[in-house]
């Protein structure tokens, strides 16, 4: 006991130190789940019912992977809303309603009280065994001041109050408490292990030996198989039950949610905690078997095998250690459960009542209420232990508690994901569930004390067959606890869903549902996300905070809040953000429903109408859609920017092309100018003969004509490029144009000794065109052919024909041909000039470029292909007139 105080004190003192806030301590503190029930009860159960005891642990293990999804959400919500207990949590979810908070607190109270009482039972029983020997019947006096259990209860109450309820602000982490729990968890595991090893390897010769010897027991088969005659559904339901308990038990909420310092610890805990459960269960069966073997002839409570075996072997040291291990398991559970229950009952049940009548209450009074609640709970548990739980095994009472707490599952878990759940739905679901729970599981325990007539059990309530507690509404499983759980849970769930669908939510509920379900969206700007309308004076809010938190702390909190939100320090009227902030702050200290009562006492809150909420919701949606719009806009902007960049690049390319074009044109012009200048300068020489003079003047004329041609072509091209070409068109036969063109070139062809082969289409090829332009194209193609055809044995072929509504004309030569990759390039201006590998022919280098433009002007196409067997064919087609 002194050790506990010591550890708690150290943990409290080194509050900020790292070892308390580490994931291992967190995972160990979760092991508060393993109580005296695990320590003594598992062995007892294993000795009589075989592997059943495992269900209690398989449930949480199966749930462990979900911790990150489910529990992280709960932790986030609780942090943001400063929620400290499960009653607070459920009441907050359903509009911070006082009545549902109180209901949950009652459920927890009735669910957990028997559970606490069996811990006291375990402590007291093990104490008796260790002090008075194995076979002595419990002689503990019924008069409480002679009873050791009573004094243990009192000391535990002191400890719990000291470390669990010393401050009013429950939102603060109880690092002292957590370190004690973690230590005790480690200790009980260690002890269990030591005893297990001792029994298995020292009293027997290892696992094999234990099982071999146990195989002679007449019910061995039954003990090592899972429900061979009842099917697996019972197993499944017990697993579900324990999984719910793992999340919903007030003490689990306390260590898992409230005392969590970092969400990331969950990741480690989700494998550390199952590992813990695995380790603590390894030796359960061997110990149970060993107990059965050793005490075959003596009547010893199997729950006490853990203690009885070392005592029987006269190992007093080990026995005391076992006792301390069990004591650790029981005390940690008692301390955490009572702390949690105490806070829950005072915050959710008593405080709202006190505050409703007297809002002037000081924080100190509320703290006293909490402390008395804890004392009250422990005393009540003691009484329950004295009069009820002595008659039942540890495990069965534990399971009944589990079923009670499981009634919270629908409102708790579904409420996290389903926005339309209503307060009335949750309230009625829990009520129905609890009523059925009470009738199916609690009534039989009362009957067994003799306070109620036996006839209820055999004939049903009021003699109605359907109302038999163990076969409620005809649910007839072999296990009464599973039956009770199934019936109560089923009706709870159905009621919750149906009533929720039939009832409407209040505005406050809509708010809270929104915040709870979408917590990860809201947790960043929570204060401004809640809809609230009303007026309050800063001074009133300040006074309120001071009364419960003290002057210094409330000033600090308010200043921090104001500077964080850029609120002027001198304003007198508090806005909704500040009021929400204050309410949250108070909720951390006295629970959300109490805080709600207090805040409404200083705030002149205007009732929000549905349409106002809707318009506020719309505003938020606007905000969200504005955001979307903004994102869309910026995406569009980026897209436009990219387009602009591409366009700019294209422009720059065109600009470069233009520069290139101009530099090529001027370069092309330099050549004739050079010849003209050189010839003229030579002609200035008076000593020139007439013949020489004539030769140079002829050169000048030639080069001037070349210059003229070039200028005309450049202008032509420019005109066509800018789309300004406007020439008259008429319907004319393409064959006729071709014949005329060839006429003007035939002297040159003959001069060069080139063979010309023509093949015209049989019928006319009427096309709408400008005759001169088309002639220009044909001349260009034929003169190119003259230039490029074979020098020795030149051949040119001109063909026209009709194809698919177009008139086609092609000119082929027998030159060296044009490689495929160069073909499209030939239509670029001055391609020849830039490409030095092609023998420079006569001409400007603009011919094909201009031809292409002309053909495109006539809606036609021009291309180059291979001539057979060698050479190139340049062809074009333009639409025929119908």
């Amino acid at each position, binding site marked *: 006991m002194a050790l506990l105080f010591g550890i708690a004190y150290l943990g409290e003192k080194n509050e900020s130190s790292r070892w308390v806030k580490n994931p291992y301590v967190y995972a160990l503190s979760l092991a508060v789940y393993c109580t005296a029930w695990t320590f003594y009860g598992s062995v007892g159960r294993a000795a009589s019912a075989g592997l059943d005891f495992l269900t209690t642990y398989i449930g949480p293990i199966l749930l462990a992977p979900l911790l990150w999804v489910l529990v992280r959400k709960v932790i986030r919500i609780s942090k943001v809303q400063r929620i400290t207990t499960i009653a607070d949590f459920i009441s907050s979810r359903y509009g911070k309603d006082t009545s549902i908070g109180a209901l949950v607190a009652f459920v927890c109270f009735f669910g957990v009280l028997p559970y606490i009482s069996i811990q006291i039972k375990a402590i007291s029983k093990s104490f008796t065994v260790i002090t008075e020997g194995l076979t002595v019947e419990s002689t503990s006096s019924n008069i409480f001041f002679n009873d050791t259990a009573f004094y243990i209860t009192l000391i535990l109450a002191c400890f719990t109050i000291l470390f669990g309820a010393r401050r009013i602000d429950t939102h603060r982490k109880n690092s002292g408490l957590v370190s004690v729990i973690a230590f005790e968890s480690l200790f009980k595991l260690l002890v269990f292990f030591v005893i297990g090893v001792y029994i298995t390897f020292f009293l027997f010769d290892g696992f094999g030996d234990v099982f071999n010897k146990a195989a002679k027991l007449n019910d061995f088969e039954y003990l090592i198989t899972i429900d061979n005659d009842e099917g697996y559904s019972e197993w499944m339901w017990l697993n579900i039950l324990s999984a719910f308990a793992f999340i919903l038990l007030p003490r689990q909420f306390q260590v898992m949610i409230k005392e969590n310092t970092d969400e990331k610890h969950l990741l480690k805990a989700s494998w550390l905690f199952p590992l813990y459960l695995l380790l603590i269960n390894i030796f359960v069966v061997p110990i149970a078997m060993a107990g059965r073997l050793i005490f075959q002839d003596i009547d010893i409570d199997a729950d006490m095998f853990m203690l009885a075996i070392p005592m029987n072997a006269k190992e007093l040291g080990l026995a005391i250690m076992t006792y301390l291990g069990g004591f650790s398991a029981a005390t940690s559970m008692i301390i955490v459960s009572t702390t949690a229950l105490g806070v829950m009952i005072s915050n959710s049940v008593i405080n709202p009542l006190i505050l409703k009548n007297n809002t002037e209450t000081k924080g100190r009074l509320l703290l006293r209420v909490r402390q008395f609640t804890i004392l009250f709970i422990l005393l009540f548990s003691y009484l329950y232990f004295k009069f009820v739980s002595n008659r039942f095994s540890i495990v069965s009472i534990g399971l009944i508690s589990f079923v009670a707490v499981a009634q919270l599952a629908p409102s708790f878990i579904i409420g996290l994901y389903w926005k339309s759940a209503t307060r009335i739905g949750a309230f009625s679901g829990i009520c129905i569930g609890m009523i059925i729970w009470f009738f199916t599981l609690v009534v039989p325990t009362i009957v067994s004390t003799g306070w109620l007539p036996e006839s209820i059990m055999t004939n049903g309530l009021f003699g109605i067959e359907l109302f038999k507690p163990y076969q409620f509404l005809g649910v007839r499983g072999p296990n009464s606890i599973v039956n009770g759980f199934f019936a109560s849970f089923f009706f709870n769930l159905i009621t919750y869903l149906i009533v929720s669908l039939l009832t409407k939510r209040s505005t406050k509920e809509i708010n809270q549902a929104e915040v709870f379900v979408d917590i990860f969206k809201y947790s960043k700007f929570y204060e401004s996300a809640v809809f609230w309308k009303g007026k309050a004076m800063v001074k009133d809010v300040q006074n309120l905070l001071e009364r419960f938190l003290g002057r210094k702390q409330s000033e600090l909190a308010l200043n921090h809040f104001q500077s964080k939100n850029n609120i002027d320090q001198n304003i007198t009227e508090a806005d909704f953000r500040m009021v929400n902030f204050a309410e949250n702050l108070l909720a951390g200290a006295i629970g959300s429903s109490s805080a709600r009562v207090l805040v409404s006492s200083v705030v002149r809150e205007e009732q929000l109408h549905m349409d106002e909420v809707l318009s506020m919701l719309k505003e938020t949606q606007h905000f969200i859609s504005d955001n979307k719009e903004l994102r869309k806009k910026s995406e569009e902007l980026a897209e436009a920017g990219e387009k602009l960049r591409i366009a700019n690049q294209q422009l720059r390319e065109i600009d470069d092309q233009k520069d290139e074009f101009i530099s090529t044109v001027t370069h092309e012009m*330099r*050549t004739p100018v050079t*010849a003209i200048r050189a010839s003229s*300068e*030579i002609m200035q020489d008076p000593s020139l003969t007439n013949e020489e003079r004539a030769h140079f003047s002829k050169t000048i004329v030639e080069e001037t004509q070349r210059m003229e041609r070039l200028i005309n072509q450049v202008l032509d091209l420019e005109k066509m490029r800018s789309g300004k070409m406007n020439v008259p068109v008429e319907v004319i036969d393409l064959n006729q144009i071709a014949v005329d063109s060839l006429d003007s070139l035939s002297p040159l062809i003959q001069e060069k000794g080139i063979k010309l082969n023509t093949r015209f289409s049989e019928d006319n090829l009427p096309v709408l065109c400008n005759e001169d332009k088309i002639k220009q194209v044909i001349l260009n193609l034929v003169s190119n052919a003259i230039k490029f055809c074979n020098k020795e044995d030149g051949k040119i072929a001109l063909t026209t024909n009709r194809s698919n509504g177009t008139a086609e004309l092609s000119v082929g030569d027998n030159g060296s041909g044009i490689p495929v990759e160069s073909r499209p390039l030939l239509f670029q201006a001055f391609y020849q000039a830039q490409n030095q590998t092609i*023998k420079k022919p006569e001409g400007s280098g603009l011919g094909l470029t201009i031809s292409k433009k002309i053909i495109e002007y006539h809606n036609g196409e021009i291309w180059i292909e291979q001539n057979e067997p060698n050479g190139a064919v340049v062809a074009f087609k333009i639409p025929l007139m119908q």
Partner: protein
Amino acid sequence: MKKKVLIVDDEPNILMSLEFLMKKNDFNVFIARDGSEALTIVQQENPEVIILDIMMPNVDGYEVCQFIKKEPSLKSKVIFLSAKSKQSDIDKGYEAGADYYMTKPFSTKNIVSKVNELSILT
């Protein structure tokens, strides 16, 4: 002995004018219409001066110049005569080892005096 001049250009009229000018100034004139032709003549005749166009089919003027300057047995001075008049083109010509760079259109007086000047140096 007459000094030898090689004129390389693919424009017949320019070639003809230069040939006339050089003969008039008492040079032994050779002509080539492209780079490869020029290289053959250079190796055969090893002229004192070469008037070299740049933009020609097959082998261009830069390559001809580089070849000459790399070959120790060839002592020819090279004058580039080109329509390319950008500073970068001129620099490129000197990098190729040219002794002089003249742009088209050219002054007949200037080209004659430059050829005279360079032919004495060899």
